[in-house]
């Protein structure tokens, strides 16, 4: 891809990503927040493709936008009784302080990244980020963490059932 095209594609995905991520925080209704988050995940998948991480982009859409957000929407539907008011509540001092602190943190990180000087991307081969290449590294170098992940998911399943179920 040419440099100009790459730059354009980056901004085409980055600006809607930030807007939809901000929508998660700004929206009053949790359902609107969830839909904004789904949009943000899709735009982030586009950024991943730009980083030649094709498998991760695919997983982002499949696992995050597909599975996790459906779980979120189910819980929102389950717990939202309809009598909440999503109106403007009084903003507390601590909330303003928290927002200012987070903004300051972002400013510090962005400044530090800027001071690093431009870090050019290295040229990568055609199999960078493909299913085959990532699968090979997962099953050789990262075999133990990979197996530990399966155990973690099993514990999460059992834990979720134990915590959420009223009577076992």
């Amino acid at each position, binding site marked *: 891809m040419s440099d100009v095209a*790459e*730059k354009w594609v*980056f901004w085409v995905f*980055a600006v809607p*990503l*930030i807007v939809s*991520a901000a929508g*998660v*925080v700004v929206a009053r209704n*949790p359902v609107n*927040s969830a839909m904004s*988050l789904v949009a*943000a995940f899709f735009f982030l998948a586009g*950024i*991943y493709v*730009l*980083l*030649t*991480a094709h498998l*991760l982009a695919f*997983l*982002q859409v499949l*696992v*995050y936008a597909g599975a*996790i957000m459906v*779980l*979120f929407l189910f*819980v929102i539907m*389950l*717990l939202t009784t309809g009598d909440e008011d999503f109106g403007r509540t009084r903003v507390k001092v601590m*909330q303003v302080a*928290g*927002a200012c602190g*987070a*903004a300051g943190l972002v400013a510090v*990180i*962005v400044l530090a*990244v*800027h001071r690093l000087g431009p*870090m050019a*991307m*290295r*040229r*990568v081969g055609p199999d960078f980020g493909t299913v085959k*290449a*990532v699968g090979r*590294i*997962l099953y050789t*170098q*990262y075999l133990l*963490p*990979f197996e530990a*992940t399966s155990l973690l*998911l099993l*514990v*999460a399943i059992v834990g*979720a*059932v134990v*915590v*959420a179920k009223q009577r076992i």
Partner: protein
Amino acid sequence: MVVANQYLALAAVLFGIGLVGVLVKRNMLVVFMCIELMLNAANLTFLAFARQSGDMSGHAIAFFVIAVAAAEAAVGLAIVIAVFRTRGTLNVDEVATLKN
């Protein structure tokens, strides 16, 4: 060419938005969504550095982050359901029994 710094700055902004959400929002579910946003910012950083260095270990780590996020969402939402069942509220400020 898009340099790695731009991806890192984008990840920082994304992390900041998530952090603001965690600190400001009072709805437990929205706080959870903002945590997912912050995890995604970390993933973006991993992938940017993987692309910058030409080393695919970042992809493996990002894969593990997605798996941990899935587990966290499952357990976290179960806890939210349990809290809602006993307290009848989703407001994080009202769940403060340990404070006294």
